[in-house]
């Protein structure tokens, strides 16, 4: 192959240097190339561009009837010139998929290269470090290839919460926990329960709690009568201890997704590179999940923790969480969680009379 002319070389360098600063693939139309090279004569320009394309230093792109050219690095061009036609076809198909990558099957369909050949070519390209295989979150089973020097796009990797295609649930959970910690400290005034010490000595409920085993049944009865007779003997019940006091309505200082994001990235709680990659949108995703979990609630533009939601010290196991859940009448009755509920009928093989769950429940 003939040597590259100096005009072509200078144009390639100019475009390559220009493209380097920008993200993604930078391509140039005729006008831009004219400006960069200083060549005004179209025929001359076409000659140069053609030369570059032949040398694999430019690739041609087409959009809306206009042609664009994108520069390649010299090293890539050098190894490309060693490839045969099929290999080049495959490479170009992969190149065109840019940061999203292309599925092997699609590759076979689009290029028209014999399927048996494709695998061979792929292997060769991979070993010469021109392409690489990546894993997409959307379709973990598919083999997807993209150019070696590119970083996969966010929708392929799934964003910061994904670790080589797998969701890092631990990270999500701890981040959620951290957000709860942060938001709670910002959205409620914590009050030390000063009066509660006095209450604790006198309240009957706590005395019950001390004698262990019996407390369960007693408490239960207490709560049921308490519900009904709420109003008339309200005085007799011990006041609930206040530990969280709300800010007056109209307060506008509640943490927003923005401020939570900056808290997370500046908190040193997670690895720096990870912290840098977390976007506000990703923080918002966690916030949404926390709202659905009823850990946060929206107030105005910001977020507030739902009353009573606590920060769980990292590493501790959430053991008492189960006790806190208060079910309703349906789920507390044996029927609400009965596996054969739909088969249960009076006079049938399963009925209230011979129900083993009732037996256990009544004895409990």
């Amino acid at each position, binding site marked *: 192959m003939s040597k590259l002319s100096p005009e072509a070389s200078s144009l390639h360098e100019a475009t390559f240097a220009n493209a380097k600063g920008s993200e993604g693939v930078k391509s140039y139309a005729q006008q831009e190339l004219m400006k960069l090279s200083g060549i005004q004569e179209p025929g001359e320009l076409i000659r140069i561009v053609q030369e570059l394309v032949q040398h694999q230093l430019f690739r041609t792109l087409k959009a809306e009837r206009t042609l664009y050219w994108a520069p390649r690095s010299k090293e890539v061009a050098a190894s490309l010139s060693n490839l045969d036609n099929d290999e080049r076809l495959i490479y170009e198909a992969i190149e065109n998929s840019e940061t999203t990558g292309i599925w092997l099957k699609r590759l076979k369909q689009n290029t028209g290269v014999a399927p048996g050949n494709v695998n061979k070519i792929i292997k060769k390209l991979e070993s010469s470090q021109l392409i690489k295989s990546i894993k997409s979150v*959307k379709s973990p089973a598919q083999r997807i290839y993209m150019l070696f020097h590119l970083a996969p796009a966010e929708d392929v990797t799934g964003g910061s*919460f994904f670790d080589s295609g797998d*969701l890092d*649930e631990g990270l*999500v959970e701890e981040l959620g926990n951290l957000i709860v910690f942060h938001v709670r400290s910002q959205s409620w*005034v914590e*009050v*030390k329960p*000063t*009066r509660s010490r006095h209450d604790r000595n006198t309240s009957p409920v706590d005395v019950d709690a001390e004698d262990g085993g019996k407390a369960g049944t007693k408490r239960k*009865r207490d709560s*049921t009568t308490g*519900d*009904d*007779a*709420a*109003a*008339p003997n309200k*005085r007799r019940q011990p006041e*609930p201890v*206040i530990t*969280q*006091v*709300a*800010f*007056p*309505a109209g*307060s506008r200082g509640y943490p927003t997704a923005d401020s939570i994001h900056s808290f997370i990235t500046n908190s040193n709680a997670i690895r720096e590179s990870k912290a840098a990659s977390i976007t506000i949108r990703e923080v918002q*995703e966690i916030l*949404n*999940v926390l709202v*659905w*979990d*009823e850990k946060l*609630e*929206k*107030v*105005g533009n910001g977020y507030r923790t*739902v*009353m*009573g939601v606590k920060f769980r010290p990292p590493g501790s196991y959430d053991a008492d969480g189960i006790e806190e*859940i*208060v*079910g*309703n*009448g*349906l789920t*507390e*009755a044996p*029927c*609400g*969680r009965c596996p054969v*509920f739909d088969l*249960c009928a009076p006079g049938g093989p399963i*009925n*209230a*009379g011979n*129900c083993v769950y*009732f037996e256990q429940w*009544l004895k409990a």
Partner: protein
Amino acid sequence: MSSQLIEVCSQVISYHYGETSRQIFEALARNGRTTLETLKALKLRKTPLSRIKTSLAQLIQHRLVRHHTDDRSDTYYSVDWHGAYGLLRTGRTILLIESRLGEKAAGVVAMVLQIGHCTVGDLAGVFDFDENGLSKRSNGADTPVQNGNGQVNGDHGSGHHDPKQIGSLAELHHILRKLLRAGFLMKLGLRSFKPNADIEDEIGTLVMEENFPDGKITGPKKQAEFKRSVDSLKRKWRDDAEYSERRDVEGGANLVRPGMDANKRQKLNGGLANGHSSHNDEADFSGPKLPNDMSIGVNLDKCVVAMRSEHLVNHAQHYLGHITAGVYRALLSVLEPKVRSVREDLVHYDDEDEEEEAQPVASVMEIAEHVDPYLDLAAGISGAKSHLPNGGPKAKRKVSIEYDNDFGDIGVKKEVDSDDEGTNGYSSMRSKNRRLDLIEQHLKLLEEHDKEFCRRPGAAGQSEWRVNFPVLSKTLVDAEIDTTIDRRFGPAAVRVARMLRQEGKLEEKGVAQKCLKQVKDIRAILAQMQAAGFLESQEVPKDQYRQPTRSLYLWFFDKKKVAQLVLHQAYQGIARCLQRMDVEQEKFQQILDKRERLRATNPDAARSFIIGKTGMLEEGGAPLSGVEKQQLALWRETQEKLLTQVRRLDDVVAVMRDFTGKDVTMTT
């Protein structure tokens, strides 16, 4: 009507009124309205006609069966679902009334419940007042007021005159008027015993005769007109049937002066809701009497309103703490008498705004009267102390530890202050203003919350508040469903449910992505929930062959369907609990029989009745010994456990079915 509900109702009816009544009810429930002849021919061939008639009369007396006689003088009978299901709620109704209007009122309602319905004269007769209207009964043993039931039976020898006992005829009338005004009792007319469908028919026919003599209502314009006139006639009839202080009271002319009326009402309502004036024995019972021939019955719809308030208060307490919830309770109790019923099925609103406009309002002054005077209002809001009566919120947000300490001091100090001020009568205008201000602050907190517990209607009525019940009822339904899902499928499933409710239809991967969960975990949850009927999936084929493997599955949450599902499961749960109770009772039958025999042979023994949680009567204090008493205690415990469970299941039913008032599955 669902078979589960039939099971529940017939179970309750058999408990209260025996087997024949149950059979009649069940036959009517399953087959729809029928005449007596068909009823007998259908299901009750072996039962003598006289017994059927007696039971039917009993059911009608308790308003469980309604009847209608048509032009050919055939009488059709049909069940009243609300009445039958309402039997389960009688106990809690009485407790609710006790907490709102005092024990005496609760006693009266218990009596009316016991006999179904009655006239004022009959009720007064039971009390056996002498000519001066004072009770003839001498002082006696102290028994709780619910013993009213004993008095009805007349086997309650020793009467008494304690503060809990109704002392005079005037007092009885006073209480009845109070109950009627509050809507816990209602006036019964002939139409109260007719099935709703027949009343509707009748209205339709009447309107047709009067307004559309040609008998044609074709075309959208005419139909709308017809509907309007039907609705207005319905409303008129309903208003006519309702108790009114002016119309229904003997010598009601005395009350016509509006100023006096309003004053009195305010005085009564204000004091009573907090249960203060029930201690006031020297209360003024003067006032007009009710006509003796007026029929009264218990209005269970009103109790649903009260139950809804309780649920809302609990809900608010969960999110904003008990102090703010206390203010909310006050707001709701102001609104309660203004809400006619949760079933506003006669009014049609064009859009949601209009519907909200129709909700009643309450002023801060009214609310302040209902707020528990012991509630430390300042402790619920940060920086409440520095809040001046007529300044803007001065409290600056400042999150620091010193601030907390500072506040702790304030909280304590404030309490001392309020104790000094006393509960009634404010030392100064300033402290009263401050109190109003604090209440307003709490209301604003409630308004600000995501769930919108209350609202301020427009800028004009700054101090007026209203509650958007339709929306909040839906919130309660959602919360109940979420709790159920949480307990059944775990917290991850709740996340999925809430997410799908907000986002609509999503594919499996979309669900996983939004919920930040692994696809394989999500798949398990989705499948589990779908199998249980809590989630729906829609198949969207990708190609013309509709291969299952090549199809998309969109998941979504069908709120209505899930609500119905939970409701029916709750019905079934109730039915099973009641059935289990029968089974358990058999185990203890021997001991229970013995107690019965002892009672029969020893009729002089003191009998005391306790109304159980669900309004079923229990009797205590029979002479038994040792092991037998233990056995009896065990039975009581089992019974209590099951009844409590029934009550909690009924809570679920109330939330799912009654609070929105939109449910039509139980209309007769």
